[in-house]
């Protein structure tokens, strides 16, 4: 047992840190620090900087652009990116559909899609959830009927994050309506420019536009865009979802956001003294820091246990999801407390009609929206209650 990083790992972390400091565009970094919304160009620019360095998809096989890093190195890289803070990779391409194509796609699909995913030449979105299929994902209804060399897709997906930016969507569709619900599903890759696809924005409680409804009306999809076998899509989806949970603790992001909360609390005055000097507030911050330290150690336990190349999900990933999301939310609540009365104005800085100075401190306006927005993290990716069901069944055998 050796609970410290090796000198090589520390040197690696230094190398990554220096690269990010040198290459992360300042305008993106500022947006990240201040908690402002990123747009497509921000994600794409950063991803292409990483791709040029050969770091776009560290976890992929080297043949397809992976770095061959150990799980610890991958962890350190992710944490350094998060602490910089740099944008997290848009998950739909590099974390979700990419690994599915690598594991289950054919050679033609790999050659066609993987390099474009790594560079975000194609921006991907995810077509899993439906109005009637949330936590019970397998009850999805969007249908794909085979007609010669293509499928005809009809139905509706929802919560499609960044569909407004997307060139492609990966979808779970029902190809055998007679089979048991998990057994009649296929995994299709669909070009968003195909006639019959309509995207409608959903505005979330923070006023932002991340998610959409996506409608499919007689959309023709070539059979060659199916991953693996027909009616085996549930198997590929489960693989994808287990990958989704591994990076979900967001330790580095939470570290950076606590740093930001402390920074703001030391400039914002409460009476004659900075809020950070209020003992009750400081104790709340310390309390979250303690939980975050536990989470970081748990994450490291999971990473260290993962042998190179063995990406089997650990039952602990459900705990990482639960605590990781709770901590992220707690930090937005602390920030809300720091901004205090200036949580009140709804003052979005991406409003095209805005030409007035900010209301109150210039850092105030993203904070209340972030508090509302972050409620999503305990809901998406398998809600925290679903995670508890998983643990009760898979770990406790109840």
């Amino acid at each position, binding site marked *: 047992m050796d*609970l410290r990083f090796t000198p090589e790992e520390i040197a690696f972390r230094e190398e990554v840190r220096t690269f990010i400091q040198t290459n992360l565009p300042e305008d993106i970094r500022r947006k990240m620090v201040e908690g402002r919304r990123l747009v497509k160009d921000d994600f794409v620019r950063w991803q292409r900087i990483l791709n040029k360095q050969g770091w776009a998809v560290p976890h992929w096989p080297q043949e397809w652009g992976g770095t061959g890093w150990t799980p610890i190195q991958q962890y350190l890289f992710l944490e350094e990116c998060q602490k910089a803070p740099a944008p997290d990779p848009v998950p739909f391409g590099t974390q979700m559909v990419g690994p599915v194509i690598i594991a289950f796609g054919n050679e033609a699909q790999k050659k066609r899609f993987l390099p474009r995913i790594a560079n975000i030449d194609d921006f991907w979105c995810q077509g899993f959830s439906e109005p009637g299929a949330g936590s019970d994902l397998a009850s999805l209804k969007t249908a794909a009927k085979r007609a010669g060399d293509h499928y005809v897709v009809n139905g509706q997906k929802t919560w499609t994050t960044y569909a407004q930016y997307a060139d492609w969507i990966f979808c779970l569709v029902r190809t055998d309506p007679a089979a048991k619900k998990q057994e009649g599903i296929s995994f299709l890759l669909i070009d968003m420019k195909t006639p019959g696809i309509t995207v409608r924005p959903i505005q979330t409680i923070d006023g932002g536009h991340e998610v959409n409804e996506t409608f499919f009306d007689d959309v023709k999809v070539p059979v060659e865009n199916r991953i693996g076998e027909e009616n085996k899509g549930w198997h590929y989806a489960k693989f994808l979802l287990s990958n989704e949970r591994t990076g979900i603790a967001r330790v580095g992001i939470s570290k950076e956001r606590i*740093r930001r909360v402390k920074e703001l609390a030391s400039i914002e005055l409460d009476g004659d003294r900075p809020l950070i000097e209020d003992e009750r507030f400081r104790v709340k911050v*310390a309390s979250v820091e303690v939980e975050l*330290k536990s989470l970081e150690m748990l994450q490291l336990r999971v990473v260290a246990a993962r042998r190179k190349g063995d990406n089997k999900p650990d039952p602990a990933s459900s705990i990482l999801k639960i605590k990781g999301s709770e901590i992220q939310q707690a930090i937005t609540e602390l920030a809300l407390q720091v901004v205090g009365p200036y949580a009140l104005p709804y003052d979005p800085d991406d409003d095209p009609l805005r030409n007035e100075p900010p209301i109150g401190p210039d850092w105030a306006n993203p904070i209340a929206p972030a508090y509302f927005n972050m409620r999503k993290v305990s809901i998406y990716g398998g809600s925290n209650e679903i995670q508890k069901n998983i643990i009760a069944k898979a770990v406790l*055998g109840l």
Partner: protein
Amino acid sequence: MDFGLSEEQRLLKDSIERLLADRYDFEARKQFMQSAEGWSRELWQQYAGLGLLGLPFEEKHGGFGGGPVEIMIVMEAFGRALALEPFVATVLLGGGLLRRAGSDAQKAAVLPKVAGGDLLLAFAHAERQSRYDLGDVLTAAKRDGAGYVLEGAKSLVLHGDSAHQLVVSARVSGSRKDREGIGLFLVDAKAEGISRRGYRTNDGQRAAEIAFEGVKVGADAALGEPGRAFPVIERVVHETIAALAAEAVGAMTAMHEMTVDYLRTRKQFGVPIGSFQVLQHKAVDMLVAIEQARSIMFYGTMMAEEPDAETRRKALSAVKAQIGRSGHTVGQIGTQLTGGIGVTMEYKGGHYFKRLAMIDTMFGDADHHLAALARMGGLAET
């Protein structure tokens, strides 16, 4: 970063777990608790035989040169068994102070006997007014020729009733809360002027109130330079907090296993109560609290050897805060889920609950350490 055990550590873990599984079931524990001393002399000798009682000491003092990881392994096993023996008092506190502050002659005189199981120590430090402030010492050590006279009263001395020798903190200069001016003295527990009142604690262990009235000690009783003992006291307490974290994790894990077992077997309305989602989620809440505790336990083990006092102080405050919270969460939910049986003395679960609650009160509870951490500016960034 490697959380795996070496071959030797694995052997240590196996041997202590096997011994406790064989000899320390709940019934046996009850017998030990009801004996006059409140723990088992026989098991103590077995621990000595396994090398546990000299674990952190140097080989030349009959020890094994073990570090925080070895202590963690042993303490987790003790937590699972709810062991009653004075390991913390003798080996970690008393032994730790001797190891870190004693002269070669003092160590050579005492530590081999401790390692052999023949000498019991206790750390007489806390006082009625001191609460969790390690620097709050009123007991006085007044110069008396070449030696000192100890005058004062020590409280909540863990296993102070059975100790052969006491490590006593006493003030040689300064006033009540000064961190400067505290000395450590190794005193025979039966020396003239010492009176002890031993008692059982709420978790089934033992402690003592100890009064010192004109207790004369020689100059050679001082551990290190009298007046400069605070850093070593704090350091040994930090090491002990890391060890208690492991004990708590062992206790929590065992209590959770019992609870889940109960949920699987207890039937109501014709089904195991573990089939109810509301109870499943409670059992998961316990597990989450345990995994948090286990994770911070590793952090404590890693930081127990940190030489920089401020960094170590922050880290161990974080550890104690998390352990305290997790302990109460696990103890309370575990008791709730086991229903009526959970609040009876005959059920082992409640004894875990009590030990966990008492561990929180030792060397600062969760709120105390959160406040301390907050005052220090929070956890250092790495």
